[in-house]
């Protein structure tokens, strides 16, 4: 063993003591050539030396993230104005500009005077009642012209009414028209969105928003409207009227303190005599709503407003098989009742999973059961009269009246039996030959409905 150690050590000693294979003189001659080689040294700021993959990655990733974040969250100037106070401060300058023109935004009093309905007033006022003040309109136009790039390429979107009669008309008696299915049909209706050049000839056009901006605008408006208590539920249908010198949300002119904020929030929508923003959680439409239809930009699933009569069967057979054309009258009666109970902007919907989706047997059971109790309780004299049963978390209301606990139990049992959950805009609406169960909005119904023959 020791001998082996000695052997190893001997090898090392040989290597250690041997003359190097290259002598110092040779190395010296090599070194003497170095000054010539290094006469033109590589500059220290050579970009090639500065570039390192690691450094590049370290810099590129955060820059990309910041750029994407800016693109998503900062491309809309309105995104800064969730905070009302900030909006007020920021827009002070523009406000003063407007004041200089002696065209103050319509105050709450002024709005009232001009026929607009304020919050907590019982008088119902259609937005059509609001008359534009020409001077104020000029002022508003100037401000918005200042803010907007109106010379962008203008895009107009037409959403044609789907051929509802074809899509939903079902003349078979006792046939369910499931509006959850209707939604899936509506998804196909996105084909109805055409983008063409603008020929509306209206005052201004909405800036070219695009889907991303529209989506962001909808989100931003819902946040602010909820925060300012201008809507009660996050799925409420909202109509923002931008036609005058005041901004009208669901028929109510907003307060002065909020005016500047919403002016800025909606600045990208432009303004005009017929300019409105209509939105639900399913869509947003920004543009001009005239008698001829909608001209502007839209995102999501939407159709022209329709009345139930447009897509319901036109007739139903009686027990003897005779054809009865009853729906037009029934729907008119039901609409009149709904108009008495709700304001024109009442409504909203729920997201897909929470739609009311019932089989015909359930609907028939509900129709029979509810009418029986309604007649017993004296809410309706017979099935000839329509009825509306609101189903909210706060309890049941029948034809706009809150019912007491004992009465409520019978209705609630029927509703629970069919697994209908409460919702802010949920109701069951009954006529002699029809039943609708689901969420209602202005001209929109999401849920399940059916025609019911005589029984």
């Amino acid at each position, binding site marked *: 063993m020791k001998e*082996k*150690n000695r*052997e*190893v050590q*001997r*090898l*090392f000693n*040989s*290597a*250690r*003591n*041997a*003359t*190097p*294979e*290259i*002598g*110092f003189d*040779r*190395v*010296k001659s*090599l*070194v*003497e050539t*170095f*000054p010539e*080689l*290094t006469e033109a*040294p590589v500059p220290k700021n050579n970009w090639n030396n500065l570039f390192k993959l690691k450094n590049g990655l370290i810099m590129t990733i955060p820059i990309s993230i910041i750029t994407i974040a800016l693109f998503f969250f900062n491309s809309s100037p309105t995104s800064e104005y969730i905070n009302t106070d900030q909006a007020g401060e920021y827009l002070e300058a523009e406000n003063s500009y407007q004041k200089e023109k002696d065209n103050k935004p319509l105050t709450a009093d002024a709005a009232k005077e001009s026929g607009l309905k304020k919050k907590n007033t019982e008088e119902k006022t259609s937005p059509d009642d609001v008359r534009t003040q020409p001077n104020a309109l000029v002022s508003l136009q100037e401000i918005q012209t200042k803010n907007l790039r109106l010379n962008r390429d203008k895009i107009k979107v037409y959403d044609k009414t789907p051929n509802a009669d074809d899509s939903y008309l079902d003349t078979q008696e006792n046939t369910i028209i499931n509006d959850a299915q209707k939604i899936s049909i509506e998804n196909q209706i996105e084909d109805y969105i055409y983008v063409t050049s603008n020929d509306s000839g209206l005052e201004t056009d909405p800036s070219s928003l695009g889907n991303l901006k529209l989506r962001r605008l909808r989100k931003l408006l819902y946040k602010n409207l909820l925060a300012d208590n201008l809507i009660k539920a996050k799925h409420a249908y909202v109509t923002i009227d931008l036609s005058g010198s005041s901004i009208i949300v669901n028929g109510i002119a907003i307060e002065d303190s909020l005016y500047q904020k919403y002016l800025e929030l909606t600045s990208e929508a432009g303004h005009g005599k017929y300019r409105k923003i209509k939105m639900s959680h399913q869509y947003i439409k920004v543009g001009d709503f005239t008698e001829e239809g909608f001209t502007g930009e839209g995102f999501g699933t939407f159709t022209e407003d329709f009345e139930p009569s447009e897509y319901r069967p036109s007739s139903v057979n009686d027990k003897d098989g005779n054809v009865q054309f009853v729906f037009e009258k029934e729907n008119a009666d039901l609409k009149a009742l709904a108009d008495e109970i709700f304001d024109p902007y009442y409504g909203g919907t729920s997201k897909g999973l929470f739609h009311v989706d019932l089989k015909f047997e359930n609907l028939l059971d509900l129709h029979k059961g509810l009418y029986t109790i309604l007649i017993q309780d004296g809410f309706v004299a017979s099935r000839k009269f329509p009825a509306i049963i609101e189903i909210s978390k706060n309890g049941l209301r029948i034809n706009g009246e809150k019912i007491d606990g004992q009465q409520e139990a019978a209705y609630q049992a029927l509703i629970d039996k069919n697994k209908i959950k409460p919702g802010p805009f949920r109701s069951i609406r009954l006529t002699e030959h029809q039943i609708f169960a689901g969420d209602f909005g202005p001209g929109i119904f999401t849920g399940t409905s059916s025609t019911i023959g005589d029984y």
Partner: protein
Amino acid sequence: MVDTKEKVFLLAYEHCHDAFLRYCSAITYGKMDTEDLVQDVLLTAYQNFENIQKKDQLLHYLIRAAKNRSISHWRKKKYKQELLDQHADRLISKEVSADTLLDIQLLYRTLDHLPEKQKDALILFEILGFSMKEIAVLQNSSEGAIKTKVSRGRQLLKKLLEEKDYRGQRLISSLKTILV
């Protein structure tokens, strides 16, 4: 100015020459021309000479530079016969005896079978005569770890020499043929 730098550099290098050359010979054995490596490393050292703060530790700088180049260039390469021949020719021209030459060749070949860090520690400790502390600084390791590496390297080397005695004999005979 250039002359001054050259002279200062050569003055600093002169003390490192033997050790640096042995180190280069050991790590380039059969894989790269030692002169190429020496020239490459020295040119870099010369260009950065102003930036080397501790001129007395030029050897450490040269060894580290040579090691870095070995890692990135020829560690995995196979032996080249012409380089082996060149190494032998150079040593013979320096009047190194045949026995010493055989010992060196055998040692370098066997060292090449050791793990890289053990090989490096053994070369620095046994051939260049570095202290454990110096090797620890060079390898950015602790003195204890270097002691372990040297000890294990030596054990492994001994084992390899025993196991490959037969092959060693064949090597010796082939080298003798070359030398003749």
